[in-house]
């Protein structure tokens, strides 16, 4: 255990090789065991993480392509630690939720483990080349999960997801090339450490459409991340992908993959191009506000539970981007916390929707009603998760949204006022769903003899519920691990922007 970060990636990889020769039945168990091993190692990382230091920790590096000074290097800091923890928590839950899949379960499990590798690697990579490899690697298992195990329109949805994301990342690739070259010409040697690109100096002469290099690089990076987030109006792939994906795929897509976008903003766009970011703040904040209202409004119009949760993600991710755009510590802490919260609550909501769909093959409100009488345990969790999602005080969502709104108020009170309406909308659509599905008389005879939560559902819901309550009651306990990194974030950024 001298190198825990490598193990985070190696364990799922070993899991894949173990799964290949096993039977379909056994491979599920093995995949679960390996994902739980990942949880254990991630706890070791959490304990070893030194909250007093703000830089990268537990760094490891292996030479990959020596002539370009490219390394396979890993490291963890306050930005990536919570997201790595979230990844490792959600993967076993996604695997557990897929236990009842009968179509090619072994290949399904291998896809999840591959996705685990890619997601963890994306957060841990400190080398831009390795980051890009992991970033793209993530797409392959995801399109298979959607395209092979999804519902009727799965092929369309998976191709749409792939092409949208890929379109963003190829331009990011050109930006990476340019940074690589610029670093080499400015400092005389190659480096592909992400942090080394923070020191690239941009000339201010316009090169294309009146934009200078820094703005172009910023836009190239941010486009890739905005598609992933997804920021309005680039969100159109999301409802398709979510609705068509199987439950496990939806959970990971919502909980982890969307966070890659916001993580990328914090890791790449902002520190590499601080001035361009400051110029683009009105644009980004405006789009995120539109996304908050629009996502909530469209969610309110849905009659399909999965679509509702999908559009609520657009709204929630708008909050996160807003928290980043306000450029103060409150906003950033709120954004960071909200990334975790959204992962937990949306993951749980997808799990519950999948639970219903499995029993009734429907996600339409109209087919349900009065489930609280039939499925009391299920209903308890649905209410809890809905409350968490609409930021009821005492649960995790409240802390995150409160901090974001506080930060927004400090920067521009109008932003906060517009965003607050999103919170109200959030309550409206979530409560509408809860009312129509859970309460009232039992309308459909088919619903009378549904079976309540089974043991595997308890296993996946309980940890999520525990974290949701714990984060709501005592966020400081978790935040203190990485709050120093967040405090430092904008001040280091201001220093950088001062230099140029």
């Amino acid at each position, binding site marked *: 255990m001298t190198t825990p970060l490598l193990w985070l990636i190696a364990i799922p990889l070993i899991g894949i090789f173990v799964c290949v020769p096993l039977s379909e039945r056994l491979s599920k168990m093995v995949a679960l065991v390996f994902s739980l091993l990942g949880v254990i190692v991630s706890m070791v990382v959490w304990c070893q993480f030194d909250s007093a230091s703000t830089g990268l920790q537990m760094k490891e590096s292996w030479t990959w*392509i020596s002539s370009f000074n490219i390394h396979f290097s890993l490291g963890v800091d306050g930005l990536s630690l919570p997201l790595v923890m979230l990844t490792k928590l959600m993967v076993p839950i996604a695997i557990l939720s897929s236990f009842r899949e009968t179509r090619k379960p072994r290949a399904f499990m291998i896809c999840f483990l591959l996705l685990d590798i890619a997601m963890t690697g994306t957060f841990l990579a400190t080398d831009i080349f390795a980051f890009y490899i*992991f970033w793209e690697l993530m797409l*392959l298992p995801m*399109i298979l999960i959607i395209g*092979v195990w999804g519902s009727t329109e799965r092929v369309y949805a998976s191709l749409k997801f792939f092409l949208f994301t890929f379109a963003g990342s190829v331009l990011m690739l050109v930006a990476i090339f*340019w940074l690589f070259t610029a670093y080499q010409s400015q400092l005389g040697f190659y480096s592909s450490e992400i942090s080394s690109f923070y020191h690239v100096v941009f000339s201010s002469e316009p090169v294309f459409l009146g934009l200078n290099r820094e703005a172009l690089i910023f836009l190239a990076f941010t486009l890739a991340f905005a598609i992933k987030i997804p920021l309005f109006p680039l969100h159109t792939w999301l409802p398709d992908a979510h609705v068509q994906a199987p439950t496990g795929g939806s959970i990971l897509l919502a909980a982890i993959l969307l966070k890659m976008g916001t993580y990328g903003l914090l890791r790449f766009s902002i520190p590499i191009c601080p001035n361009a970011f400051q110029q683009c703040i009105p644009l980004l904040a405006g789009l995120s506000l539109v996304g908050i209202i629009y996502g909530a409004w469209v969610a309110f119009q849905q009659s399909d539970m999965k679509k509702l949760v999908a559009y609520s993600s657009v709204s929630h991710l708008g909050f996160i981007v807003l928290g980043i755009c306000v450029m103060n510590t409150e906003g950033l802490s709120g954004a960071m916390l909200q990334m975790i919260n959204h992962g937990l609550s949306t993951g749980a909501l997808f799990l519950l929707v999948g639970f219903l769909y499995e029993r009734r093959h429907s996600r339409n409100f109209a087919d349900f009603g009065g489930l609280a009488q039939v499925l009391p345990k299920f209903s308890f969790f649905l209410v809890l998760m809905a409350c968490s999602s609409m930021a009821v005080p005492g649960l995790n969502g409240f802390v995150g949204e409160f901090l974001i709104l506080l930060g927004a108020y400090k920067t521009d009170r109008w932003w906060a006022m517009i965003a607050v309406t999103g919170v109200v909308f959030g309550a409206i659509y979530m409560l509408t769903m809860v009312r129509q599905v859970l309460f009232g008389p039992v309308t459909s005879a088919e619903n009378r003899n549904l079976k309540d939560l089974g043991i595997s559902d308890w296993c996946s819901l309980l940890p999520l519920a525990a974290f949701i309550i714990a984060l709501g009651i005592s966020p400081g306990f978790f935040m203190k691990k990485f709050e120093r990194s967040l405090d430092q974030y904008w001040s280091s950024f201001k220093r950088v922007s001062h230099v140029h």
Partner: protein
Amino acid sequence: MFTEFFLYPSSPVLVLLLTATALIGLECLPLDHWSRGKFCVAIGGAVASILLSVLLWKAWPIPYSSVGYSGAEAWLAEFYRSYFLDRQVLAFFLGIGLFTFLSLVFMNFHFQEHELRAEVFILVLFVASGMMLLVSANSLLMIFLALEFLSLPTYILVGIQKRDKASGEAALKYFLFGSFASVLLVFGIAFLYGRYGTLNIPDILNAIQTMSVDSPTPKRLTLAALGLLLVGVGFKIGLVPFHMWIPDTYQGAPSPVTGFMGSAVKLAGFGLVLRLFWGMFLPLIDQWGPIFDTLAIATMFVGNIAALVQDNLKRMFAYSSISHAGYLLLGVTSLSPENGSLLYYYLLIYGLMYLGLFAIIAFIEYYTKNTEIYQISGMGFTHPFLGLYLALFAISGAGIPPTAGFLAKYFIFLEAVKAQKTFLVVLAVLSSLIGVYYYLRVVVYLYMKESKERIALPVSHRFAFFCIFLCALSQVYFAFSPSLLGFGKW
């Protein structure tokens, strides 16, 4: 003297020629049922050629490379003037040897019941030696001879399925276009000879260099020769707008032959481009660079867009090979001889991808006589290994990480950005974005469509399967240890 300065440096070529000649001799004997033995002889020749290239690589620099015109006997000096060897050429030798070896294995499978099975081996060996002579040519005359020497057997290979009309049509088209290209090349060579009075490439390079120092705009005759050579070469490597023959020829040819043409012949074609444009016309890069850049962009887009609408696997990947030529051409204008290994890496990875791909298509074609894309529906689950390999080849061809195909594109594009061609690279990545769609279609058919009927692909040829596995492995392995492929110094 004879061994050291003739036999040793030219041994990789000689061994192929000797093996081919020996096989012709064997054909004269009454050994009709000994085709397995003939296959072993052919394979042995290819392996010996690879080993000799490795030996030469390890022993570099050998005394041959330092021999001058004066120090040697007259005939040896003449040999030296037409045969050139350095590590770059040796790397191409290795690639050609490797591709020949794999092609022989796949053709042995595909032509197992063909009446001309042994002739196929002979033809492939002749093509291989022609390709080696082409990439090592030091004289324009040698280039022309080698080009004809490799083209004629290739025409025959394309049309070897005599009863198949498509194969005949493909061969005829290839022959007509190929001979037209040769005519243009000869014409260009004649202009150069008329202008400089020599056919020796380094001499012409010197003359162009001194000339370009004297007057910044080169003489018209040189420019005309440059244009003719460019068009002739453009036909050979299939650049837009000289690509018309590729889809029909690649589709009509037997699948392993297509794989051979897309990998080895393309490698040799780019070897020719490097000999001509890096070895001879490098001082005139301001003249041919922009033309090549334009052609490269056109080639990428035409290849990728045309491939989008194809439903036949062979035709689709024929167009994909056109688009790859575009990326490679971008590398030719952006790289320099010092980091030419990046281009070689691309060629090798792409060639291995293409060979493996067409080996699988050959399996499908052999058993179903049909290469429409719906043939592979559901193959990812009915034939897990072949399906996985096919998906891997498609992903690598599209340049999606973590495959070697991504690294290959990555470094070509990186060097192009370094050469101040950011706009071209933006266009190139956009064209590869278009291309991703049809590569993904392969994955979609493999895993996301139900198969109507299960194609039986018996595992009778374990060695051919193993070679496909090697091709697939190379796409992953070389992504993680690319330094093996000569990254850095030649």
